[in-house]
């Protein structure tokens, strides 16, 4: 039985380059990704980390860059930092950024998940991506996604 996969498609009135930049620019991701940043040199084979914008030692997700073809394709492996060497706990995220009918079609495919991971990311991606869309279209992200989730508790 193959592992579950989560696919989310969102259309954004923007350009592929702006969507690509928003996913990688710390000043932007902190606005829609719970005050986290994505740190890497983005070369294939390099490490990447999803870390607290205010505290680089606090890393929530880690992995490697599998594919990088700006501004259309980015593929990363994805796990908790403690699980990077455990294949059962490593999933894969593909960002596909295409022009479509005058706007941008962003597809996030999160695959190789177990049921627990699927539940977590199914709840996480929609507000993050909705907030990215608001940021690019209105200049402001959704306020609830600007705060560090952990500090909010």
């Amino acid at each position: 039985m193959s592992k579950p996969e989560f696919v989310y498609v969102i259309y954004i009135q923007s350009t592929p380059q702006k969507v690509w930049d928003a996913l990688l620019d710390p000043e932007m991701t902190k606005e829609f990704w719970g005050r986290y940043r994505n740190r890497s040199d983005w070369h294939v084979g390099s490490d990447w980390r999803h870390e607290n914008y205010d505290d680089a030692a606090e890393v929530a997700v880690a992995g490697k860059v599998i594919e990088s073809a700006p501004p259309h394709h980015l593929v990363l492996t994805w796990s908790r930092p403690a699980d990077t060497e455990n294949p059962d706990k490593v999933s894969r995220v593909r960002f596909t950024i295409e022009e479509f009918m005058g706007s941008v079609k962003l597809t996030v495919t999160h695959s190789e998940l177990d049921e627990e991971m699927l539940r977590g990311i199914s709840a996480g991606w929609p507000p993050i991506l909705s907030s990215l869309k608001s940021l690019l279209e209105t200049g402001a992200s959704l306020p609830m996604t600007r705060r560090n989730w952990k500090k909010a508790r």
Partner: protein
Amino acid sequence: MPQSKPEFVYVTYIRATIDKVWEALTKPDFTRQYWFGFEQRSGWTKGASWQIVGQDGKIWDSGEILEIDPPRRVVISWTHQMKDELRAEGASRATYELEPVGDTVKLTIVHVGGPKLIEAVSGGWPQVLASLKSLLETGRPLERTGELPK
């Protein structure tokens, strides 16, 4: 093991009031702008008929309102009418659920039905909902969503 029916679930967060999102989802003046020129024609009460009608007056989908609790929830019996292979699958069931979350509305669409219909709406819903979100947040729907592509 019995096979459960195909299902499409989509969640989006829109920075608007729940009343505004409900209005945009149900009123023809709004839907025509972001739903490719279509309107949902209904009295929006339990048991009322419901149709998706194109700009040319043709009925694309029809059914009835199964449950409704404005502005939070509506459940629609939805049968496609235009393409034979989709009509043959019979009635599908679409639920629109609205929940305030901070100063946004969490809008959840759950659509359950035959495989061909669900494949079709899986492509359509993200476009329609993205355009609805753009309309409410920026005052303009997404480009080229005001009418069916030629």
